[in-house]
Each structure stands twice: as structure tokens, then as C-alpha cells.
């Protein structure tokens, strides 16, 4: 690139702000890229993954705000404003239109920003169920705390919210406070990942909460029914009530949530966690190609217009999770700054990790394989362990020696190792049971000295084996002190002193004829 590229980023959420950081890291002085970010939210780039942490009170708003770049990435002396991007930094404003022919974006305040490259990081918006009672009768009051779900029928009612933004989190917390004060409960509609994480966080704050989920088991996108059942029990133990297999039919303010089975769940507030959809309004308006999952992009994250890129939840490339978005940000930053013109985003292995204190749940790949063949007949290999009494369930699917799917509930050690194998496509160890349990099979029992082989190392500090100690004992060194003096065992860190003592005692027992005065014939 010969001249400085003007890059405009629309959206300053987790992925948009990450892109700014990745660009800044590669081009701290703006020599190659001049970056302008336009974000709708007044707070830039907060970490949505941490919203449950914010809800349960473990984190502050400051913690979920963007972090600084490492000092080693900043020039010395740092550029003014350090963390800011080059050039004007514009949050709290909105892009209303894109003029692709003129390569400008139009802002809500009427200004126009020219670009050489435009990046859409508009994220996703909550999907609202077609449920009566969710909306204010008088739409468009324009309140500051209006939730981010733009609706065709108007703003959400005052006791209903979604959870996408920091403003939503504040709103939910306010509802929770009110509910607590009145001894009432919060209903969470949707037993997927976000719904459960939010419910868990609220419960940790002491808020009474009930999750309502239309299908018979929780997290049905990720879990099989067995795992779903065990998860339900585990959550119940943590105080999270559930109404499963029944749909919601109506929200009635001051009463609660009416369910399809005819009952009413009394609740003072309703949290909607019923999915999200890519925010593609701007892209569609300016005529970009949009696929089923979002704005269509290629491996270079370029849309149908070569001057426009898209990434994160708004793009049709692994939306919904943070990790893919961050990896996309690195790829796009490498391209925008000219660091690597051929960088490609080739997909991120899909791993879902429920972030709920007291629950260890990891899902990866496709675990919905019930064809329990063996590795020999070329079919998938399926291993499953159920331990409902202890809230544990582990299911592992392999093709050959590659892990292709897993559900791991309550087996955190296994999860850590398996995710790494899955991420890298690395061959799985042959000890499948150890793989599933996360620990090598049975821990070695503390055997007595008699069970040790002669070559077993007793004193590592001085390379003294049991055989050497045995010989020394037979040559007359009978006390631990004598053994130490002869062999130097236990004269290093002293960690084997007990073993040497036991060995001396065992030798005295089992070889009584040695060391005693021989009897007269």
C-alpha cells in the first residue's frame, strides 16, 4: 500500500473494538491505516462475554470495558490517547447509509465520512418471540435505556428486556433489584447458553429465577436428552427453577408469564434469551449480498463489494461466539495494514463453554451421533459415561483417532485436554477412558517397599535405587542413618526419608537371618 488507507469501522462491540486493537498493534502510528470507528453504543467495545459476571456482581462496568494494549506494542513515547485509534474516534453516533459509489458513509448527525475500506461489525440483535404483552403500547418514547431489540411494534415494555448490551445489563439489574425488593422472581425465556448464564448469574446475586424453555431439555442445540436432564438437576441444585417442554404464550405485566400448559409463572420481570440474528439492515440497504447466517463474506472477510468487509456476528462466518470474531479481527487487521495480504479466515472449531459458576459444561463439534459402531468398521466411535448422582455426563465421538464431538458435564479435566485436541485436529491418545476422565488411569497407590522393583528410584537426589539400598542393607547398613551414610539416600532434599525408613524396617522383617549372630550349630 503506497498511501495511508482510510478505514471506517461501523460497530464498536467486542469484535469491532478488537479489530481496532489489532490494527493499532500492527500499525501503532497510523502509517498505513487511518482508522475511524463509529459505534452506536456510548460505551465502546465492552466485553459481552463478561456480562454475566457483571450481573452477578463479580465484575464492574470498568472491567468489561476495553482493556489497554500491552506496553510492548505501544511506541515509546506512547501516541497521544494511547488506546484510542488514529484520527477521530466517534462513538455514540450511528451510520444511517452507505454510498458505495462515492465510498462514503452517512452519519445520523448528517456528516459524511469517506472511506477506502469499510468494515461492518454491526453485530447481532436479539430475536423476539411473537408473544403478546412484550411491547409498550405507545412505541418510540426514545428513552435512553431502551433495549437494543428494535421492534416493528415499538419498544419493549418496562418490565421486559433482552441482554445484548451494557444498557440491557443495567436494565436487567434494575428489574432484578425491583423483583428482589418485592420478593418476586425473574422469568428467563429461553434455556440456551445465554439464558442459563444469565439465570445462574442472577441466582448468584440472590435473585429468584425460573427458566422457561419450550423443548423438553435445556440447551437442546448442544446437548442430547441425557446431558440435558443432568444439567437440569445440577441447575436446580443451584436454585434455578425450570419449566421445560412448555411454550410461553403471553406476558402480563404485574402478573407473570402465561404458559401453554395453562399455568401462569408469577414474575416481576422477563428476560428474553430467545436467540439472535445478524444485524444486516445497513448491508441490505446498500445492496450487499446477505446469506442465511448474515452478510456474505469470503475467506478474506470481503463482502460482495471488494471495498467492504464484514466480521463478527453480522457476518455469515461462524457467528455467535467471541473466539471466531476475534480471530477474524486478527485476519482482517493483517490484511488492512498490509502485514499479510493473504491472511485468510478458515473457520474456528466450534466449542461452547457454559460460563456458570458451579457448572462445568463443554460442548464441541457434533455430539449427536448415536451410531455406536467401533473404530474397526469405519464408523464413529462413541464413548459415554453417565453419573447422574454426581451431575456428571461425558460423551465423546471420534472418527478414527480424531475427536469430532463431545459433551462434557462435570468432568473439567477431560474438557481442557479434549478442546485442545479438537481445536488442533490432533490425534487422540489411545487410552480413551483416560481421555474421557481427564486423568491417567487409576492413580498409583502408595505401595509398600515390598512392591517396588529393585530398579525403582528411591532417592532421586542421589540416584539411589531400592536395589542399591537392599545391597547396602545386606552389607551391614541396617539403620536409616547407616543406609544414608553408605548410599547417600535421603541426604538431598530429604523427601525419601520415610521410604528409606520403611525399607529398612521391611528388610529387617523379611531377612531376619542377616544381621543376627548366627546360631551355633
Amino acid at each position, binding site marked *: 500500500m503506497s498511501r495511508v488507507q482510510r478505514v471506517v469501522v461501523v460497530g464498536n462491540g467486542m469484535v469491532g473494538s478488537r479489530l481496532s486493537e489489532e490494527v493499532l498493534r500492527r500499525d501503532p502510528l497510523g502509517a498505513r491505516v487511518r482508522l475511524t470507528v463509529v459505534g452506536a453504543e456510548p460505551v465502546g467495545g465492552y*466485553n459481552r*462475554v*463478561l456480562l454475566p*459476571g457483571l450481573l452477578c456482581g*463479580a*465484575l464492574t462496568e*470498568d*472491567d*468489561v*470495558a*476495553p*482493556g*489497554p*494494549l*500491552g*506496553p*510492548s*506494542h505501544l511506541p515509546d513515547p506512547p501516541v497521544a490517547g494511547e488506546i484510542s485509534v488514529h484520527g477521530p474516534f466517534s462513538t455514540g453516533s450511528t451510520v444511517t447509509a452507505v454510498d458505495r459509489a462515492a465510498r462514503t458513509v452517512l452519519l445520523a448527525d448528517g456528516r459524511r465520512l469517506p472511506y477506502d475500506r469499510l468494515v461492518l461489525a454491526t453485530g447481532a440483535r436479539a430475536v423476539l418471540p411473537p408473544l403478546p404483552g412484550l411491547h409498550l403500547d405507545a412505541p418510540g418514547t426514545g428513552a435512553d435505556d431502551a433495549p437494543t431489540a428494535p421492534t416493528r411494534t415499538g419498544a419493549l415494555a418496562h418490565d421486559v428486556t433482552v441482554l445484548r448490551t451494557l444498557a440491557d445489563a443495567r436494565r436487567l439489574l434494575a428489574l432484578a433489584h425491583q423483583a428482589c425488593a418485592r420478593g418476586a422472581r425473574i422469568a428467563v425465556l429461553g434455556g440456551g447458553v445465554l439464558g442459563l448464564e444469565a439465570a445462574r448469574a442472577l441466582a448468584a446475586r440472590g435473585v429468584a429465577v425460573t427458566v422457561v424453555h419450550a423443548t423438553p431439555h435445556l440447551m437442546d442445540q448442544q446437548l442430547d436428552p441425557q446431558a440435558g436432564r443432568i444439567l437440569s438437576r445440577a441447575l436446580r441444585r443451584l436454585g434455578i427453577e425450570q419449566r421445560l417442554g412448555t411454550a410461553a404464550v403471553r406476558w402480563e405485566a404485574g402478573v407473570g408469564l402465561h404458559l401453554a400448559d395453562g399455568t401462569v409463572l408469577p414474575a416481576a420481570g422477563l428476560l428474553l434469551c430467545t436467540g439472535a440474528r445478524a444485524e444486516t439492515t445497513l448491508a441490505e440497504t446498500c445492496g450487499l449480498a446477505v446469506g442465511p447466517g448474515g452478510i456474505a463474506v469470503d475467506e478474506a472477510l470481503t463482502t460482495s463489494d471488494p471495498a467492504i468487509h464484514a466480521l463478527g456476528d453480522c457476518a455469515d462466518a461462524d457467528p455467535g461466539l467471541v*473466539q471466531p470474531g476475534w480471530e477474524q479481527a486478527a485476519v482482517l487487521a493483517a490484511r488492512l495494514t498490509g502485514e499479510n495480504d493473504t491472511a485468510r479466515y478458515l473457520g474456528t472449531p466450534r*466449542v461452547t*463453554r457454559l*460460563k456458570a459458576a458451579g457448572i*462445568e459444561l463443554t460442548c464441541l463439534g457434533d455430539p449427536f451421533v448415536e451410531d455406536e459402531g467401533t473404530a474397526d468398521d469405519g464408523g464413529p466411535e462413541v464413548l459415554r459415561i453417565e453419573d447422574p448422582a454426581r451431575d456428571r455426563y461425558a460423551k465423546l465421538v471420534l472418527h478414527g483417532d480424531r475427536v469430532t464431538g463431545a459433551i462434557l458435564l462435570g468432568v*473439567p*479435566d477431560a*474438557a*481442557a*485436554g479434549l*478442546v*485442545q485436541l479438537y*481445536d*488442533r485436529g*490432533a*490425534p487422540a*491418545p*489411545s*487410552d480413551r477412558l483416560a481421555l474421557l476422565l*481427564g486423568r*491417567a488411569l487409576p492413580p498409583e497407590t*502408595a505401595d509398600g517397599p515390598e512392591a517396588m522393583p529393585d530398579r525403582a528410584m528411591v532417592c*532421586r*537426589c*542421589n*540416584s539411589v535405587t531400592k536395589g542399591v539400598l537392599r545391597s547396602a542393607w545386606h552389607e551391614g547398613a541396617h539403620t536409616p542413618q547407616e543406609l544414608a551414610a553408605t548410599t*547417600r539416600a535421603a*541426604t*538431598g*532434599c*530429604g*523427601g525419601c526419608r520415610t521410604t528409606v525408613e520403611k525399607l529398612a524396617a521391611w528388610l529387617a522383617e523379611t531377612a531376619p537371618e542377616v544381621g543376627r549372630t548366627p546360631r551355633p550349630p
Partner: protein
Amino acid sequence: MTGETATHCPYCALQCAMFLTPAPDTGQLTVAPRDFPTNRGGLCQKGWTSAELLTSPERLTTPLIRDGKDAPLREAGWDEALAHVTRRFAELRATRGPDSVAVFGSGGLTNEKAYALGKFARVALGTSQIDYNGRFCMSSAAAAGNRAFGLDRGLPFPATDLDDSEAVVLVGANPAETMPPLMGHFDPARLIVVDPRRTATAQTALDAGGLHLAPTPGTDLALALGLLHVALVEGHLDTPGRVAYRRDRTTGWEAVRKCAARWWPERTERLTGVAAADLRRAAAVLAGARRAHILTGRGAEQHSKGVDTVAAWIDLALALGLPGTPGSGYGCLTGQGNGQGGREHGQKSDQLPGYRHIEDRAGREHLARVWGVREEEIPGAGRSAWELLDALGTQDGPAALLVMGSNPAVSAPRSRRVIERLRGLDFLVVADFVRSETTELADVVLPVAMWAEESGTMTNLEGRVLRRRAAKAPPPGVRTDLEVLHGLAVRLGRSGEEFPPDPAPVFAELRRASAGGVADYAGVEPRLLDDDAPVYWPARSATGAGTRPGGPAAALGTPRLFLDRFAHADGRARFLPVEYREAAELPDAEHPLYATTGRQLEHYQSGAQTRRVPALRAAAPQAYVEVHPDTARRAGLADGEEARVVSRRGTVLARTRYVASMRPDTVFLPFHFPGTGAANVLTNPALDPVSRMPEFKVSAVRLERADANAPKEGE
């Protein structure tokens, strides 16, 4: 000399106390452990057998000269050898400038020798080109410690403080093998060992109910931030004491808090492979302890992000309020025998005695006065160790090198390149007591005395200054390093008084030279060391110093640093914001495994000494590679078979050792072996931007049978 001599082990930084006693008939020295607060009468196999090398038939007892690049080394007299060296040095200086002659020192040298070597380089040779092998050991922790606390001393507290600790995190340190008697200071049930391998130390912890966190090689920075995140969100940092500590004794918490906020446990788990549940457990143990310590070793340091990695662990320690709190703390486990003292007295390319920065004007003026030179005559900063070795014999690099107490042909990264550069020199001089892989490349070899044949001072990992005492005279024909420097300096036209051959006047000058510096030895009086009094630097003056009559020796100098204030001007410690970044080289299709390197109990450093001790050689005779059985079988390797380990930089032959506890993605090689088994042929000289530490701990390799098709040529 007769009777027993109280001295210290020649090897690691624990400097275990020992007695040396000559046999009445042969004079052969025997070793006996000596009670001392650090080793408490313990010795490992290296210490027990340390005297054997003194009488090894492999000792060098006469100088050797090579009369031409292809000629063999021949015996020569001292006068001839020293004259030859100084003539060549002088020629090169005259024709190619003072920086054409370089010096490479060691963390094994006494304080006196380290000091004299630095002075020799800057005053007698006038070269800026001096660095030492300690750059490959402690430089990352030194840099991080200086940034965070304003001062770097391995342990800022006596090792005995560890006895009462309720939680000790050992990061990339394996003392059960590298300094076994230190293990006596830990309660293994309260250890949290961070190491990609289940080392002897990790196993000791696990057996006793302690914790072992096994991160993917090169990810411990993220692990530290993940632990900090957990400590933060689980409320461990909200105690009034910790809040007050951060407010009153530190700066920069808010920025670090944000760095940690991004490393939620599940993200940390995915990168590091350490279960989120284990993170929570470790954080709870650490935060719940009334007294706790975080100690880092080479495993944290030897990365191209070593400084930031250590900084992340220091951040965790500061968040928990450990440094400068009695009974708690952060420390670095120094490696080499005088790794501490060796980094204080001017062997580093950017440093002058007293741990002064070489660009510090006041320090330069002080040294100019002590050395009797003009300030502008003292050269500026030179190349760091790897950069120095990499430049040898090149157009702009040094044409001659003096090596003292080091074997860089084995211990430096990408060692094949180092050997090539040493070969490319016009003139290589090596002072050593046995032949090594480096002496084999030398034009002149100078036989020098060993530890039991000379006196001097060492500074152990606690910053305690120790007296090393001679137990016998060197063999005929052998000189001490100080005598060598004296002989060279005089022949280069300096006065003999400037470079005394005896350690006592050198130490006296070192005390003056360090006075007012960070590592101030002014108050370290020789009589205190003669009495084995516990003296810790900084010891600014000797007033009031002395042993308590009748009672146990009172600690002198500064046994515990930072109790009142940190060494920055404002008295506060600095939180250091850090970001995770990947290792310089990651596994790929061609090289799918991580290789990491380290030590084994029986050997020390390049093994030049310990491989010559029969008992140690018998216990650990040859290079091996630890590998998970599944990984080995995939490469067609049975336990005990010879494997070929291949990186982008070269190939190593090593015995396959099945270790079921290894991560399947990682192999381990000890680096003590030369030739085809030299692990550092594989290692990556990608440097840390601050400490210039090479990335010994992470390289990408593949494993294959040694009898597989012809190896691809390395470079």
C-alpha cells in the same frame, strides 16, 4: 593444606554448604555436607561427587596453542600463551578497533572474577562487546523485577521464609531436580506447580495433595492472567488488607485489572489446556493462604515473551499483596552458582558494577573514579549474548573472543550456528579447567583453577554473600582466572595494581565500585564473610555490622527487601500491563510437536563438568527425549529406541523415553549433552525484546526413527 575446609558447592545458586577434607595420604578431597540455612546438611548427587573432577585425568594443566586453523592444539608455556593472546588482541585492536575483541563470561564466576572480567573488557581491552551466559538464564526475571520493584534480587527474602508459607506457586521451576535441597523448605501439599511436564517437583506436589497445572508450552502468561481473573471475580482481591496494599504500595492496578478481565477461565482453559476448575482451585488455595509465595524459574523466563510472562506472575503476586509483606513474596529461583552476583558486577553488555545501567551518567563517573580512567573512555552498551555470538566473525562483528567459565557451543540456542560463528573467528581464547566443546574450537586454551582451589565470594539466590574457600592448591601449571586476567592486562600495558591476581584486593575494589549502586556491597566486610555471617545486599555500610556476641548471627545488610518501600523513587511497586502473544514458532504440519528443554538432576549446564564425573555419567549417560507413548508409537518408536528430533534449525539424536504423563503434543529434551545429542541445536534464538532472552522453552519439532530415510539437512 590440612583439615577440613568449610566452603560451598560449585554448582547451582543454592550454593549448598559443604566441608572438603583431604585424605591424609593422597590429598584427594572428600565432600561432607555442612549445616547451613539453605541446604540444612543436604547435598544432591552433583554436590557429593563435586570433588571428583579436581583430580580428573582430563584436567587441563598446561596452556594449549593452535598454530593455524587446521593444526592440532599443542602444549605451550604460560609466557608464550599469554604473549600470543595479547599480541593478537593488540593487533586486532590496532587494525580493527577495540570492539573487534569480545569477552564472554559466566554466571559461575565468583564476584571478584565477574567484576575483574568486566573491568578487563572495558579498561584493558576498551571493548563494549562483553556479555555472559547468564543472559540465557535470569535476564527476563531481572528485567521484570527491575520494572516492577525497581530492583532485582532473586529471592528478596531468606529461603527459610518459605518454610512457613501456606501456598507456594512454582512457575517453570523444577527444584526437585535442579536444586534438590531447596525442596526441604516446601510443604509439598501446599505446592502449586506450573509446568507443561509432570516433573519430579510436580509429582512430589501431586503425591502430597498439591496441585499441578500443566499449560501448553508458551502459554503461562495467559495462565497467570487467568488466575488473576479468577481471583478478581471470585472476590479474593477484595479483602481490606489487599485493597489497602494496592492503594498504598502500588500503582497501575486499574490497567492490569483490565488485562486480566479478558482472560476469563474458559478462554484461558482453551488456550492453556488447564481446566477452569483447576484455575479456580489454585486461585482459592493461593488467595486463602495467610502467607504465600510465587516463585518463577527458567520455564517462565526462557521465551521471546519471558519478561511479560514473569511480569504477569508478578502482577498476580502484587494483586494478592505478597511482595514486601513479611512472610510472603515473589521471587526468582536463580540458576547458576553465582547467577546473582554474576549479574551485578558488570559482565552484562549494558551494565556497570553495582547493578548500574551503563548509560547512567553518575554511575559512569563513579566507576571512572574507581578505575582511574576518564568517563568517556568507558565504552557504551554492547551486544547481548545471543547477538554477540551471532555476530562473531562477521563483517561488523568481533574477530576475537575471550571465553571464561562458559561452554556456549553447547549451552547457547541454535548451537550449530554458534559453533559456526566460533569457527568463523580469527582468534578464540578459552579459559577452562577441562576440555569442552568450546575449547575444541579455540586457538588458545588457558588451564585455570577450579572452585576448591581458589577463594572468593559468591552471592546465592537469596542475595546472601558467601565465602568460597580454597581447600587445596591448584595442580602445577594451572593458574586462577584472576591470575590470567592479571597476566593479560599487564601485557596489554595496564598496571598490575589495576588487575590484582589475588581476590582480596579485587573484592575491596568491588565494594568501592558498587557503593551507592543498587547492588551495594560497600558494607560487606571480609571479616563478616570469614565468620559466615549472614550478609545480604544491599549493605550500604559496615557500621553496626557484626555478629551478636554469644547468639546466632544477626542478619546483616538487607535480608528482606521492600518491607517498607519498593525501590522505585515513589516507593511503590508497579503493576505491569501485559498482553498474551504466541511463541515465535508454533507447531505446524511439518513440525507438529512442541519441544521444550530443561535440566536433569545429574548434570549441570552444558555438562562439561558433570559428564566427566563417573557416577553422574553412569546415572545419566546420554541424551534422551521424553515423549508420550502414543506420540512415540505414531512415529514408530519403541521405548529406548534412538529417535531423531528435527526442528527448522537442525536434528538431534536421542533415546526415546516413554513418559505416560507427558502431554501428547510435547516432547522434552535435557540440554546437557554435546554433539548429535545437543538439544540446543533445535532451539529458537527468537529474542525477548527487552531482556534479549532466547526462546529455549518452545520450538516446533517432529519425531522420527533414527534409521528412517536420510535426514533433511539442517542449515
